[in-house]
C-alpha cells in the first residue's frame, strides 16, 4: 500500500506493531492505542520515533498528555463511509495543536483526499496505487472552500470580505 507524505509517494519509516508483537530494538514504530497507553513510558524511552494508531470510537482527548512526545498519529477509516476520524483529526489539529504527522489509514481513496487535507491529515496510506499517483492532481481539484478549518485555506466568506474592502477603496 503506497504512502503519500508531503504530497508525494514516500517510503514508510514506521513499522506497525500488533498488540503482542515483540518490541524491535530500534526503528520507528506505530503502536495500537491500547498498547501505547499501557506501555507509554517504556515505548517513549527507546530510540526511534513512536506513533499511535488511534481507533475512531475512542475519545481522542485521552491522547492529549502524549501529543508532545509522539511523532505520528494514525487515524482509521474502517470504511471510507465512516467519517468519525475527520472529527478526531480536526480536534487534534485545531483544539490540541498537534503538529506531528497525522496519517489517514484504512479505506483511503482518491475522492476523499481533499476532505482529509482540509481536516488536517498530511500523510495517507492510500489503498490503490493509481490513487496515490493522482494525489497532487486531486488535491488541487478545488479552489473554493466554504468552511474555515485549521488548514488555513481562505474561505469563500472571507474572500468576499476582502473583495468588498478592496472594491471599497477609492469609490
Amino acid at each position: 500500500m503506497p504512502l503519500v507524505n508531503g504530497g508525494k509517494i514516500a517510503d514508510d519509516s514506521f513499522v506497525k506493531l500488533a498488540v503482542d508483537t515483540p518490541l524491535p530494538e530500534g526503528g520507528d514504530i506505530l503502536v495500537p492505542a491500547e498498547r501505547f497507553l499501557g506501555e507509554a513510558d517504556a515505548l517513549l524511552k527507546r530510540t526511534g520515533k513512536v506513533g499511535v494508531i488511534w481507533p475512531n470510537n475512542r475519545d481522542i482527548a485521552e491522547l492529549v498528555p502524549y501529543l508532545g512526545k509522539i511523532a505520528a498519529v494514525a487515524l482509521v477509516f474502517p470504511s471510507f463511509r465512516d467519517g468519525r476520524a475527520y472529527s478526531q483529526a480536526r480536534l487534534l489539529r485545531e483544539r490540541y495543536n498537534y503538529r506531528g504527522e497525522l496519517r489517514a489509514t484504512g479505506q483511503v481513496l482518491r475522492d476523499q483526499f481533499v476532505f482529509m487535507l482540509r481536516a488536517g491529515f498530511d500523510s495517507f496510506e492510500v489503498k490503490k496505487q493509481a490513487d496515490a499517483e493522482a494525489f497532487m492532481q486531486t488535491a488541487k481539484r478545488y479552489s473554493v472552500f466554504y468552511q474555515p478549518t485549521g488548514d488555513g485555506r481562505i474561505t469563500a466568506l472571507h474572500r468576499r470580505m476582502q473583495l468588498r474592502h478592496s472594491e471599497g477603496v477609492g469609490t
Partner: protein
Amino acid sequence: MYAYDEIDRTLVNERVSEFRDQVQRRLSGELTEDEFKMLRLQNGVYLQLHAYMFRVAIPYGTLASNQLRALAHVARKYDRGYGHFTTRQNVQFNWIKLSDLPDALADLAEVGIHAMQTSGNNMRNVTSDQWAGVAPGEIEDPRIWSELIRQHTTLHPEFSFLPRKFKIAITASDHDRAAIKVHDIGLRLIRNEKGETGFEVLVGGGLGRTPFIGKTIKHFVHGRDLLSYIEAILRVYNQYGRRDNIYKARIKILVHELGIEKFSREVEEEWEQIRYSSLQIDDEVIEDIRSRFIYPSYEKLPHMPDELRQAAADPEFEAWRKNSVAAHKNPGYSIVTISLKPIGAPPGDATAEQMDALADLADKYSFGEIRVGHEQNLALPHVAKRDLPALWKALDKLGLATPNVNLITDIIACPGLDYCSLANARSIPIAQELTRRFANHELANLIGRLHINISGCINACGHHHVGHIGILGVEKNGEEVYQITIGGRADENAALGNLIGPGVKFDEVADVIEDIVEAYLALRERPEELFVDTVKRLGVEPFKERVYATR
C-alpha cells in the same frame, strides 16, 4: 432570489468536473460500484427500479425563471420530458442515463443549480418556507440564513460522511410551512428582547420507521453563533451517532437514547469550545449575503384593482382565487400557489412544456421568480393583483389552475413502487384514485383543509405520519396492504397520526378514506372545524368504528 458570484460558480464547476472524472472512472471499471455508490449519491444519483434517478437541489425553494427553463431542458434532453417535485424542495428526473449525467450537471451549473448532497449521508438541501420574503408578518427573510447554512454545509470536510443523512429546515413565520419539527435540525427565526435575530433550535425530529417530533435544544441562539452551534451539534452526532444499524443511525435516535438533557449538555460543552472561533458571523457577512438576494421593486398598486373586481363575476376564477391566492406582505400583490395535483395525475409532476411556460409567466407576472414548496406545489411569489385574471387564464390553459391547494386532492405522495427500489407498495395510483373520488370541487371545498400523505414504504418519503390522513403501504404475504393513520400534522403544532386499525387492501383504500371523510362531515361541530381538529377533539374511535363496522 440569490445570485451566485464567481466564487459560487467556480465551486459548482469544480464539482461538475470532479463528478465527470468519477463517472468516467466508474465506466472504465476503475471504481467499483461499492466505491462509486456514495460518490454518485452525493451528487444526487440513485439507482432505482428501472433507471438512474437524478435529484437536483432547489435551495430553500427559490428558483429563477432561467433556472426553471434549465430544468425543463434537462427533462427534455436527458429524460422523458417531465420532472417530479419532491417534499424537500428538490426536483427528480427518473429516466436519466449515467453517461449523460455529467453533461446534465454542466448544463444546470450554467444557471447556478447543482445536485450536491441531495442524497448520501451528509447535509442535505437546506429547506425553508416557500413564502419566505413575501409572507405577511414574517420576522425577516429566512433565506439569508438558509443560504449561509447552504454554503457552510456544502462539501463540509468534517461532516460529509455522517452516520446518516441530515436535514435542516428554517422558518421565520408563526405558521410553519417548512415542517421544521420533523427535521434533524429545525430552526425558528425569532428576535430577542433587544431586537436581535436568533433562532430557537430544535433537534431530533424526523419521520421514517421511527418518527419523532423535534425537541427544543436551545431557546435562543444568536444569529452570530448559528454556524458554531450547528457545527457543535454535528460534531457530537458525527462521533456518537450509531453506525452499527442503518435504522438507528439518524440523530433522532441518538437524542432519544441519550435524552435531550444529556445530548444538549454534550452540544453545549462542544459549543463553548468553538463559539468564539472563525465560525462566528459578523453583520458584514450577513449583509454580503443579503446583498446578493435580488428583491423586486414593487409598484404602489391598488388593493382591489378593477381587473379583479370584474373577474369576480366569473365563478371559476373566483373558485381558483379563493383557493390558490394568498396575501402578500405588499397589499397590491399576491402569492399564487400553482397546484401540481391535477385530478387523476401523479402528484408533483410537471412537464418540460409546463416548466417553460411557467418560466415565461414568472417573467411576465412575478419578477422572474418561482417557488417550490414541500407540499409538491409551485408558487409565483410576487403577482400584482391586477394581473391575477390574466395569469389564471394562462395557467388554466396549461392545466395548472386546479383549485385544490390544501384540499383533499392536494395529496403528497412518494414515487412508490412505480419507480422506487425501496418501496413495498404503490403510492401514485392510490393518489390518482383518491383525486378522482374527490374530483368535485364543491365537495372538496365543503370538506375544507385536509392533507392526505402517502408513502409506499416505511421510509416515509410521503410524510404519512404527519398527514391529516396518512396512508402507508406495506407488504404482507406478497400483497400490498395500507395502514391508515389520522390526526397527524406537520406545522407549528406538529403531531404524529394515530393508526385507525388493521391495514386494508389496495382497492379498498379509497373507500376507507371516503368513510373517514363522511364520518368527519357528520361529526364536525361546525363547517370551520377542520378535519384534524375534529380528530383531536374526538380521538380515533368514532372514525375507527365507521371504517370497520361494515368490514
